[in-house]
């Protein structure tokens, strides 16, 4: 293959990516420095950094940032810890292992809108199965999605159900590919199971755990479908994360400039978190 085919093979895709991916990013950046109320009928008006400055004393922005932070940190912590523990537990040969793995692929593939709809029903105060089970166990029923205090935990539970399997399966795949010698020599040295896990297994699968955390963090920070379907950000703005707030600003209030500046903030957030995680990954590799 010569230079001509090298570019002949790549250029069509690169041009298409340029149009569908790069154009909107640049347009987004440009629009974030404009004020544009679409319904007014007038065009965009250049205002420099004013959209960004306005964010500083916008309480709804800070609230959405807080929701994004709590939700992402909550889901990421629970999913990584739980997923790793379950992967360690399942890391052995047993009958039906491939079926178990298949079962854990199902939540990952399921349509988020459908999953959210079903969990929304299960969290229903009067008829939801969760409150019914809790009452049978002698507990008080909870308001779940209707309570400003418990709505985020309820969303974290739903997210955990759908995405812990991803972490579990990534870590399990990594565990299965590990060489067996370090474990055997550790056994000979008389190490107990917890020492083996802590000193040998975890350092070896650490890169896989960080990769899993990176993938989940990108999506957790940007979560939209689940929250929009289950609560639309409510009650009031108790579960309105940054992505939902951008959506409302752009498509309910039609303030495209302000929405664009918020989108840039969200992108920066995802980027910074991922740079941090990849630094962790690289220092771990040494």
């Amino acid at each position: 293959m010569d230079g001509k085919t090298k570019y002949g093979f790549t250029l069509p895709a690169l041009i298409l990516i340029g149009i569908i991916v790069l154009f909107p990013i640049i347009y987004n950046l440009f629009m974030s420095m404009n004020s544009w109320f679409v319904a007014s009928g007038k065009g965009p008006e250049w205002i420099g950094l004013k959209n960004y400055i306005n964010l500083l004393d916008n309480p709804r922005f800070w609230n959405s940032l807080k929701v994004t932070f709590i939700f992402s940190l909550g889901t990421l912590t629970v999913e990584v810890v739980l997923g790793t523990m379950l992967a360690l537990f399942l890391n052995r040969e047993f009958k039906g292992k491939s079926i178990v793995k298949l079962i854990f692929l199902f939540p990952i593939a399921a349509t988020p809108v459908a999953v959210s709809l079903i969990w929304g029903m299960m969290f229903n105060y009067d008829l939801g199965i969760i409150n019914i089970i809790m009452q049978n166990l002698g507990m008080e029923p909870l308001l779940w999605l209707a309570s400003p205090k418990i709505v985020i935990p309820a969303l974290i539970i739903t997210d955990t159900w759908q995405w812990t399997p991803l972490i579990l399966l990534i870590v399990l795949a990594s565990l299965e590919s590990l060489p067996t010698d370090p474990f055997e020599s550790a056994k000979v040295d008389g190490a107990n199971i917890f020492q083996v896990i802590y000193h040998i297994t975890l350092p070896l699968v650490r890169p896989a755990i960080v990769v899993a955390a990176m993938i989940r963090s990108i999506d957790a920070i940007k979560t939209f479908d689940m929250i929009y379907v289950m609560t639309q950000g409510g009650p009031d703005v108790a579960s309105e994360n940054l992505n939902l707030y951008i959506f409302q600003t752009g498509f309910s209030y039609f303030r495209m400039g302000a929405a664009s500046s918020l989108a840039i903030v969200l992108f920066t957030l995802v980027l910074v978190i991922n740079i941090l995680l990849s630094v962790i990954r690289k220092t771990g590799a040494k």
Partner: protein
Amino acid sequence: MIKKIKTFAFYLSVVLLCIVPVSVFLWMFMTGLKSQADNLSIPPKIFFSPTLNNFKDVFGQGNFTKYLLNSSIVASLSVLVALLFGLPSSYAIAKYRMHKIGLVLLIARMVPFISYLIPWFIVFRSLHLIDTYVALVTTHLIITLPFVIWIMVNFFEGIPASLEEAARVDGCTIFQAFIRILLPSVRNGILTAGILSFIFSWNQFLFSLILSGSSTMTVPVAVFQFISYDEINWGGLAAAASVITIPPLIMTVFIQKYMIKGLTTGAVKG
């Protein structure tokens, strides 16, 4: 004896563990198969006489079949175009180790969908292309095209360079070698990339919520619309949710061996 008890305890916990994902799907199907009266009864009935009425209603009532068709068309087109553009480029990227392109694609993945949606909404609105397949397929390509490239770069890197050289020695042009020799050798990759991007497009909600309308509405948006004015009809909602969830679940079975690898390659490369 102790070993037997240990093994039994292990299998028991594995079964209990599997109940967690399974029960939610089971509850969804059961709710869809229950009559309205059964769905409102407390305590909930585990044994009930199943009825297909909810599913009949979903398909009979209005345009659900049309929305299913819309979802299939949009997902198929965005997968086909992504493969058409993505396969040759991912081969060249793998062969010439153009990893910078991979990095660009990783960053593209971190950009929130809403950053793509706002500009495309403005463009499609002024071109009067809202509620057309063009608008939906274009935006779904933002997801499917980079994804196909990531996966396929990984698969192409796994085949030896001698394969292309041998084909060229036999007198194939580079294009013939690509179609006849190279593509068949990565068919598992194409299957994985194709099915996973189909699932992503099928599940996509945000782009379709804004860019589709009555004639191109996809099923996730249609189901979401049901919630707004039919909050109490759990049977109908669960039946609709079941219908949209079943295709991705079936597809998963076919790519179960490669799915996790497929979902992680992009991030590993970056």
